[in-house]
């Protein structure tokens, strides 16, 4: 199980990529969703182990939008409040596919590496 804590740091390129992947996948699964919904979903999926810093989430949403992978528009939430809803674009869907493949490949490598007897600490 992954335990991720996000910092406002530029050094977490890998983690940033991971966050992008998680956001894209969330939107893919749930359809258009606001920032709160995405955060809740990640909390839920990670069984509350993934405490997402909102200072990371909102810039990430903006970044994904700037790259053209998601779009956003204002709408009305389930409890009748104005909220900004994010949804996946076609380019975003392709990007999700690519990133998911990369992740699988990397995860395979890592787990093979960790599985080797010599890899044990």
């Amino acid at each position: 199980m992954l335990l991720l804590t996000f910092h406002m740091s530029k050094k977490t390129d890998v983690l940033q990529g991971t966050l992008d992947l998680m956001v894209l996948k969330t939107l893919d699964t749930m359809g258009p969703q606001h920032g709160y919904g995405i955060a809740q979903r990640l909390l839920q999926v990670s069984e509350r182990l993934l405490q997402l810093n909102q200072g990371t989430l909102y810039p990430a949403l903006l970044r994904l939008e700037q790259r053209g992978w998601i779009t956003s528009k204002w709408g009305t939430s389930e409890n009748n409040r104005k909220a900004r809803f994010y949804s996946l674009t076609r380019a975003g869907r392709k990007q999700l596919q690519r990133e998911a493949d990369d992740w699988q490949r990397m995860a395979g490598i890592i787990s093979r590496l960790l599985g080797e007897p010599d890899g044990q600490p």
Partner: protein
Amino acid sequence: MTARELLARIAGAFGAGRRRDADLRRELAFHAAMLETRHREGGRDAESARRAARLELGGSAQIAEAWRDQRGLPGLDTLRQDIRDGLRALRRAPGFTVAALATLAIGIGANTAIFTVVDAVLLRPLPYVEPDRLVTVGDRTAAGFSSNVGFATVADWRQRSRSFESLALMRGWGPTLVVDGEAELVPAARVSWNYFDMLGVRPALGRGFTADDDRSASWQVLLLSDRLWRRRFNADPAVVGRTIVMNDRAFRIVGVMPAAYEPLAEQRYERLSAELWAPLGYDLSGPSSCRSCQHLRGFARLKPNTTAAAAAEEMQVIREQMRREHPADYETGTIAVIPLARALTGQVQAALYVLLGAVAFVLLIACANVASLQLARSVARRRELALRAALGAGRTRIVRLLLTESVLLSAGGAIAGVALAASAIHGLAALAPVSLPRLDHVSVDARVLAFTALVAMATGVVFGLVPALHAGRADPRATLVIDSRGSVGVRSRARSTLVVVDLALALVLLAGAGLMLRTVDALTRVTPGFDARQLLSFQFSLGGKAYATNEQVVAYEQRTLEALAALPGVERVALAGQIPFGGNYDCSALHVKGRMKPNAADDPCIERYGVTPGYLQTMGIPLRGGRDFTGDDRAAAPAVLIVSESTARLIWGHDSPIGSQVRIGNAERGPWITVVGVAGDVNHADLTEPPRAAMYNPQAQRPDASVAVLKTATADATAVAAAARRVVRDIDPSVPVYQVASLASLIGESGAQRRFVTRLLAGFAAVAVLLAALGLYGVVSYGVAQRTREVGVRIALGAQRGDVSRLVLRSGVPLVAAGLAAGTAAALVTTRYLGSLLYGVSPVDPATLLSSAVLLAGVALLAHWIPMRRALRIDPVRALQAD
């Protein structure tokens, strides 16, 4: 970052389609509200739910900042923030800000001012079509330029050479223009018909010259400069086609040159440039076409893809061919093909680059001073910076903040500096020697502003980097906890280094200025071979039918001499064809009967002065042997000549030349002339050069007078100028009088370039010394302030005044010593660049270097004065109570 993201960020940074911060606030408010709702549903009361929600969401300011970082271009928003912070910090320290701005304004202003001159004179391309292909062609002179050429020679070049697209010729000319009864000698030029085509300039009005215009029988057309057209012809467009008479010759005006046309600088002593042009009007049958007659300037346009060097190589081969074919007409020598830009400015390049180097030094000193001020201030600011670091500002962030601050300062200094420079340029141009070409084009323009901006930017980084890095290195925790004595050591070490640099640079400038002062001083002690005191000279021009015969000229001269001699305040008068420092050159070969050189062209060219009797006496040139001319040396009398000492030495060696028979110019023709006297040597044009060989012949036997010299009774020779002008005008109003000047001022002009450099260098050196002293003062007084307590203790323990003084001196004297040592080493390396400007003093003159060092040391010790008095006044009781 993808291209698309970059575009989005640029749009975000500059407002287009930029999502407002308010949008994000609403989005976060929604997020918070949702969290709050969830907590309330979990059973909390309203207040604690809100608190829990806020805690979970995190600081909305941080989110907003991270989000803004993502929205705009990285750095742009922080830059905006840094500028705001920087301006605020500078406002909080007005004393520092004013001192830094003033220092920078001086440094940057001086650089801007000198750069405007360098740019206008040296860097700006000549205003002709493809100026890089324009060259001058001629034999290489001693100074490395191209000499005059002859018409017949160039006619051969045109046939044989392959390097040039066109070859054009020019000679200076001074016709007398009479419009509405007012005579004026107009600076002018006669040019080959293809001259303007070669430059790529067309008349603004009318037509240019054609090959038909340029024949000896028919040259009778004129082009006017825009200025002359406006000045004398009221800008009348109907002037084209009008006929005017100059020197009894009728000319038809065929065109007016554009206002923007810049004539090629011609006259050495005149700022005036040509105002009208006529065709050269030579052909190969004319008397001016002899192969040894060389009085034309040769210009050429290189073919595309040809270099000046390749053209010179080809021309050298042609030159050798021609010397083989006409051995008597061409001297040995090499051809010089010089890019036009260099030919026009070569003489002043060294001086201008020296000045540019010197102002760069001044700027460096200014930078060191401001850096030192910054360091001193950063001690006081340590707490502020430490607080910023503690609040999460990284080291790069703090360095950037401080750099922004220093660039802000240098930008302010640049603005003030440009204002300073703009007001200084007029003074600079007035101070500049007339030999600086294109000086009327000096102005603060976009190029200059770009240069200044660049300098300011570099300046800001140079003086900001040291303090910024120091501040970035400081450990925030240590600074916040430890009291104010924390890392003072590091800072004062850096400041000390800066002071040493200051002193070293100041010493270099002082030494340079000292060497130039010695040069100017040496030049004032050079005796030019004549007595320039109380001498007034003016030039006049005889032309036209009224002076077509020698008799007419001689008669005019006689009347003029008598009228001038009768003027009150005039002791002696003489006329001459040229005078020393008058800006004319007229040299001819001299052949001794029975000792003809196999190749006459290799004879030295000897300056010839046609003079009236009494010239030598009027000028105060001593007669070393033989006799002076008398009134009996008339046209009909036997031809006589006086030679100068160096001519005698050059041609007769140890023998006496008196009684020798000689011929001037052509060895084959002309009368035999008897040498009757030997005169002392005179400097003809340059005090720094050895006198040229010279000879004198009586005007009556070879009339060509154009200069009058008057020995006046008063020290101010120009006092009689107006009266002399009137006399000449009364004799014949059609004879123009010009260049009325005392000989002392003419000699002065020949040294003007050196004096210009000297004055500026001295000014820069003074500023440098002042800045260095201020820097040293800052460091020493800071040291005293830091050690108030220690000094107090020492005084309490019985230290004497001398002990305290020594304590203060100990903080500064090693710096002075290091600065002087470093400066001496640097001066030994750099002053050699002054070489070509120096006279009578070596670039590494020990006396100059030593006195500069002593002077600087004296000023440096003075900088200890105030801090020392303050130290002596320290009250031990108070010093110990403080803190």
